[in-house]
């Protein structure tokens, strides 16, 4: 092997320790972790090498590698670690830091992951909603979506949320692109030629299949129940996404007060089609909401139950979990209050919208981004023939 000069970044080591990897330095490189891990590849397995890279402050080596995201934090490594070095927690801290490294703009990632900024970040959607007229409670029966209802009286709500969603997607795209080129660079500097026989399309298709089936998650042993909990939350998010798209479609198409009608281009949609649409998205929405709440409560329960073996998690984890739980609970509560025709539904709905905003506007910087980065790492792994 040729001579190589390592440049340890001590600031980075301290940052890992501060970010939930306080056990990092306990590692003595026995490699038990790499063996008990069921999701690691045989060639250059993780997380033993990540532990020494982190101890030595080799930031680039860590960030330019798909491995930190291929880790699903099963915590089998942490349970079997003879030193209590908690590789699972250390890698989680490094993942959080890699979000700060790649996401655009980076300062938002630092803000999202520091408790001091929480209120400020929450104040943004609240102020926007109030400015949009959310402080005004319409008279008459409690209604959100119907023409003339609450949502329709919020003047800027749809343009605001839509543009925030577009910005978030753009930011995610830029972050992921940075991560991808960093990984490519890392691979070419390590001298291993990438396998070329798998196309990007195939790699993406295979990754999506794998994620839908939660194949890797199912290999976790120490934290077995996590796969079920995660599946519930994951599929409920898909369900809620479909619900949102359908509901948005209805709001656009509605001949009586819909956007197109408002803009002077009403479309001729039959009333029965619209009613059918409403029935379908209400069913999907309610099932998804129930699955979301059950799933996220299971996530919380699992975390508490496994805290001793796997660690409780950090602010980065709990912020995300709390947001998802808050989203589900306020959503359901707002619905119940509306059905009960109680005006308290309005403020609850505003809180719900704040959660929605927080989750999606800050998605590129919070743990919400894990799905994109992990999926990217999986695609890269397949494309480079590492798997």
């Amino acid at each position, binding site marked *: 092997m040729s001579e190589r000069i390592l440049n340890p970044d001590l600031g980075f080591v301290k940052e890992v320790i501060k970010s939930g990897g306080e056990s990092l330095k306990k590692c*003595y*490189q*026995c*490699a*038990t*972790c*790499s*063996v*008990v891990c069921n999701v*690691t*590849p*045989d*060639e*250059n*397995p993780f997380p*033993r*090498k990540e532990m020494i890279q982190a101890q030595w402050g080799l930031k680039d080596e860590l960030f330019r590698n798909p491995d930190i995201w291929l880790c699903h934090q099963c915590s089998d490594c942490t349970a*079997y*670690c*003879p*030193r*209590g070095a908690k590789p699972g927690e250390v890698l989680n801290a490094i993942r959080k830091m890699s979000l700060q490294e790649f996401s655009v703009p980076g300062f938002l990632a630092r803000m999202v992951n520091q408790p001091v900024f929480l209120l400020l970040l929450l104040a943004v959607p609240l102020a926007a909603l109030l400015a949009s007229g959310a402080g005004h409670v319409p008279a008459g029966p409690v209604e959100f979506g119907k023409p003339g209802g609450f949502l329709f009286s919020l003047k800027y709500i749809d343009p605001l949320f839509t543009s925030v969603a577009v910005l978030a997607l753009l930011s995610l795209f830029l972050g992921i692109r940075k991560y991808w080129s960093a990984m490519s660079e890392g691979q070419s500097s390590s001298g291993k030629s990438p396998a070329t026989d798998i196309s990007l399309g195939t790699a993406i298709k295979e990754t999506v299949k794998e994620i839908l089936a939660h194949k890797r998650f199912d290999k976790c042993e120490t934290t077995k129940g996590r796969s079920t909990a995660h599946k519930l939350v994951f599929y409920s998010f898909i369900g809620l996404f479909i619900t949102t798209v359908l509901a948005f479609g209805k709001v656009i198409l509605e001949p009586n007060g819909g956007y197109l009608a408002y803009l002077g281009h009403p479309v001729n949609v039959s009333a029965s089609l619209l009613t059918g649409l409403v029935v379908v998205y209400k069913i999907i929405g309610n099932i998804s909401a129930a699955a979301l709440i059950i799933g996220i409560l299971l996530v919380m329960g699992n975390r508490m139950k496994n805290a001793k073996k796997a660690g409780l998690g950090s602010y980065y984890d709990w912020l995300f979990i709390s947001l998802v739980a808050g989203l589900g609970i306020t959503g359901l509560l707002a619905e119940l209050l509306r059905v009960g025709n109680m005006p308290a539904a309005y403020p609850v709905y505003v809180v719900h919208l704040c959660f929605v905003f927080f989750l999606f506007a800050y998605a590129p910087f919070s743990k919400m981004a894990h799905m994109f980065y992990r999926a990217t790492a999986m695609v890269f792994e397949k494309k480079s023939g590492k798997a």
Partner: protein
Amino acid sequence: MAEQCILVIGGGISGLTAAIEAAEAGYDVCIVEKNPYLGGRVAQLNKYFPKLCPPVCGLEINYRRIKENAKVKFYTMAQVESVTAREGSYDVTVKVAPRYINDRCVSCDACAQACPAERQDDFNFGMSKTTAAYLPFDQAYPMRYVIDAANCKDGCMQKCKEACKYGAVELDMKPETVKINASAIVVATGWDPYDISKADNLGMGKVKNVITNMMMERLAAPNGPTAGRILRPSDGKEPKKVAFVQCAGSRDENHLSYCSYICCMASLKQTTYLKEQYPDATADIFYIDIRTPGRYEKFYWKVRDMEGVSFTKGKVARVENTEGDDVLVTLEDVLSGKKVRMAFDMVVLAAGMQSATRQNPLQLGINYTAEGMIVPSSLKPGIYAVGSSKSPVDVAKSVQDATGAALRSIQSAIKLLPAGGIR
């Protein structure tokens, strides 16, 4: 009338050394040993490191010194029941379990041949059986049979009695209580092999040809279950490809947080057993760090340079059954960064040592570490702990420690060290 003596709890190499050294200096000594024989763990070893001589030689010398010295009294199958301090000495009650065979025994084996019942041979870690009337091992001291009453019921003992021409079998032997007034107490309770089946990824008790290092000692010992031939347990095949898994339970917070000190040397030593019997065999030693303290390093170099012996840095963290009763081990070779799966004929787990006081703490007002080792600074005046009751040690260090404790206990006996004196 209570026996006046220096009490030595434990008749292994440490206890024997302390007792004999004090007795040869002219002091009365009582040894209390829970096994039916003296010699402890050392009696189970095939060879000592680094000289590779059989421990029975050393033990025999000690047995002779005891035989020739009227000042040493010993109780086998005995355990300390209670200890109370009195005027610079200790009143000790010892319970002696019935052996059912008295001192008329000439070790003719007639009772064993007549005995219809069997028992697991714990001296060989269950790798063989003996009849319920048995001699613990061929050079046992005292050279006297024992009847395992729990495994010899319903007229079984009667058959042993009838077979004995010397009237040595006593069916109505009862537990006895012995009173001792001890001027000093030497705690030499020794160690137990750590129960490595608790590490559920290392296969002990689940994977057929996984054994512990102490089992390897018995397999290689001429008086062991295979008469000294190293054969793997499942089918008696000669193992030609053997793995040694270091730190099996040691340096592991989930098991024993400390280094057991002797396991690296034990595996290196056992590699020489293997190579001696099967020169074409290969030994793979998987380690985190090879720890051969002090001059033992030279022994490491010697074994390292043997043909067919290889060392791989990386802890084995998965052990499974594979075809033909072979054993599959998985590790990450840390130096190459690759996950390695290798099949072996047999796998030896270098299981650590834990102080016997972890399972059976003594009621002496002692503090123990979280893992049951005696904290020496917590010992009361006149009580001394030696050898592996305090920390994992090898035989040589135990003997040195015990010799020092003999002097300390003599000082206590002649009241040079009053209450609160130096410990």
